[in-house]
């Protein structure tokens, strides 16, 4: 008769075996998928694309949203007949951390034999997974991660349709110089600008870019202060800001610290005339929900929040509304965050504009098709054009036509105010 201990050990080993079998079994299934359908002339082989996003763990909040947007793009493309009659299918992987991202990329490439991967939302995950793709010569399409390093390694198979951290910094500084200074009635030289940023990859790379580029503008950065995103209190930071009394506060924050920063500022009576955050923190639905009226007037740079029929192609307005509708249906009326639209925009560009042009739908073919693209401003849901830097350039794979948007909270809505092609309303700045 087995003791409790022995029984339990056996159970655990059995579980392990089940896991191994399940893992192996999965491989065979998908192989069957691609083989079985070639018999039937009516139904063509589906196109299998791998996806890597953080669907669990600390990054899941944004990861799921971006993935949802990508998935909606797939659904709509399939409803419209697929790509030359071929259905698009995803093999999706969850990567809560960089080690998992590497492992899942390996799994998708080795076991599921994908030639195209869409990912990853978070920069550190992207750096890990895309390195695996490059080594295996698999096409990698980064729809959201903005770290400069993603397209800064001279890699030939990594493409990023969205803007980089460098580009976002440029837009924030442009906005300060071209809009904020005049609205405040101040000469840019006299403008007091302070930057605060959380100290993880996102905040650090945004800050680094702002600090590096500010010399191209007429104003100076009074101070650059980092803090931990996990901070339980920011009173000391707010008080030191209050003491310095800036005109413009630039903030690279995530949601929680953006909320804490704004609330603490209110508690301690700190109210700079202009605050420019990012869509990673200050421009999220959670932020406006937590701050309510106090969010009014705050700016957020980054991913475009809504499409204006007046200034962009009508098809994009229709797509935008469609994405909103489907997301709300799926989540009981919840407002989509900008990540959803961004994921959709990137995936749509790939599925609608790149894949149909490819000679063969494999890594090489898609790569060539992407490099051929030269679309003008207004050709994507996000409003920018498309032109990828060539393999011989330092930022190989980066969409050089991309740019960030600047929006402002007005009446509880995040309204685009800059640049012109995207602007729906004028920015409201009070002295």
């Amino acid at each position, binding site marked *: 008769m087995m003791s409790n201990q022995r029984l339990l050990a056996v159970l*655990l080993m059995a579980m392990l075996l089940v896991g191994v079998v399940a893992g192996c079994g999965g491989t065979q299934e998908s192989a069957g998928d691609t083989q079985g359908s070639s018999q039937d002339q009516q139904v063509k082989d589906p196109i299998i694309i791998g996806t890597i996003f953080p669907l669990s763990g600390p990054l899941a909040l944004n990861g799921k949203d971006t993935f949802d947007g990508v998935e909606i793009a797939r659904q709509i493309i399939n409803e419209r007949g697929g790509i030359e009659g071929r259905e698009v299918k995803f093999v999706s*992987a969850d990567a809560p951390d960089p080690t998992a991202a590497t492992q899942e990329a390996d799994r998708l490439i080795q076991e599921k034999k994908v030639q195209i991967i869409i990912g990853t939302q978070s920069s550190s995950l992207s750096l890990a997974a895309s390195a695996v793709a490059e080594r295996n010569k698999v096409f990698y399409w980064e729809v959201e991660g903005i770290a400069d390093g993603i397209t800064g390694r001279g890699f030939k198979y990594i493409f990023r349709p969205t803007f980089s951290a460098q580009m976002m910094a440029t837009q924030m500084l442009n906005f300060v110089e071209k809009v904020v200074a005049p609205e405040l009635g101040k000469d840019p030289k006299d403008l007091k600008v302070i930057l605060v940023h959380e100290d993880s990859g996102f905040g650090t*790379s945004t800050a680094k870019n702002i600090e590096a580029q500010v010399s191209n503008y007429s104003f100076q950065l009074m101070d650059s202060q980092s803090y931990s995103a996990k901070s339980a209190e920011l009173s000391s930071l707010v008080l030191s800001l209050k003491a310095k009394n800036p005109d413009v506060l630039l903030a690279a924050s995530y949601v929680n610290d953006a909320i804490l920063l704004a609330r603490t500022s209110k508690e301690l009576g700190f109210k700079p005339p202009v605050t420019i955050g990012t869509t990673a923190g200050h421009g999220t639905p959670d932020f406006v929900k937590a701050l309510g009226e106090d969010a009014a007037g705050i700016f957020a740079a980054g991913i475009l929040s809504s499409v204006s029929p007046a200034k962009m192609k009508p098809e994009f307005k229709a797509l935008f509304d469609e994405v909103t509708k489907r997301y709300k249906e799926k989540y009981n009326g919840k407002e989509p965050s900008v990540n959803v639209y961004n994921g959709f925009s990137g995936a749509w560009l790939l599925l609608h504009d790149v894949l149909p042009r490819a000679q063969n739908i494999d890594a090489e073919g898609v790569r060539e098709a992407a490099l051929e693209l030269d679309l003008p401003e207004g050709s994507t849901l996000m409003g920018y054009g498309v032109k990828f830097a060539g393999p011989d350039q330092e930022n190989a794979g980066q969409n050089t036509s991309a740019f960030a948007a600047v929006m402002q909270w007005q009446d509880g809505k995040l309204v685009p105010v800059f640049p012109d092609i995207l602007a729906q309303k004028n920015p409201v700045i009070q002295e």
Partner: protein
Amino acid sequence: MKLDKGKIINSWPFVIAILGILAISKIENQYYLGMIFNTLLWVAIAGSWQIVGGYAGEFSLGHAAFFGIGAYTSTLLYIHFSVSPWIGMFIGAAFAGIIGFLLSWTCFRLRGHFFTLATLAFGQVVLIIATSWRSLTSGSEGLLLPIKMGFWQMSFESKHAYVYLVLIYAISVILFTYVMERRRLGYYLIAYRENDEAARSLGVNTFRARLTASTISAFFTAIGGTIYAQYTFFIEPESVLPVTLSIQAPLVSIVGGLGTPFGPLFGAVLILPLSQFLRGIFGSSFNGLHLIIYGLILIVVLLLMPSGLGPVILKGWRKITGAQVKKINASG
């Protein structure tokens, strides 16, 4: 004390190791190779932790600091001074050893929980330093390693090479533990663990023994950091210094059997592939479910089998083989 060579060669761990090496060379699937790499790396990390955690009984929850010190030292030397990672690895390990020595020297007089919490704080401090000292470490942006293949650069095209590397690493740690157990250092440590006062009254310098163990433990852990950096070509504070790493090292040792040389082996083989498969099955559909199961397994193992699964399995194995032997004897 001389080791009986005959005994070692005849014993099963070596058979398994040789079979393992042959099997690995046959596997081509990069995903499986990656998983084997990860598992073996953790055998070594947990084994390194165990030298001070299991044998000396000093329960550290800050070992990620040493892993990170190893990774950053060799990487920075490699990036800025083109020092070969092989050399950088030992420099990093020596550096970690010194830090381990200092940490233990100051903190060992803290009793049980206090020591654990102090190491927890220490691990966090190192993480914060790595994140804030941007001029040195590039902070959270991390460091990208040059992608230049070659033996001297410890950078290989095929995963096989990395797996062999980490296999040697794991075997070294286990072998060291096995040998240490049977020599003076091991005896001193076990004596301290069982009854410190009695040991000291017999003239054993338990403090020195523990310091030695702690230094060696930090040294070995740091080597893992370098290997990891060379494998992933990218390091950042959150991947080489997080508290989850500090927690997983003792975890693997405990589940596998604390205080035994092969405990980390059992623990790693059981936990790592399991968590990866769980994530593969449940990851995208029910977020976090695989971790809930992970936590449940942890609690169940601990409450019902605190000596770890390793000893239980070994006992069971001996019983099965022992029973068979008995049967043959009886009939013949």
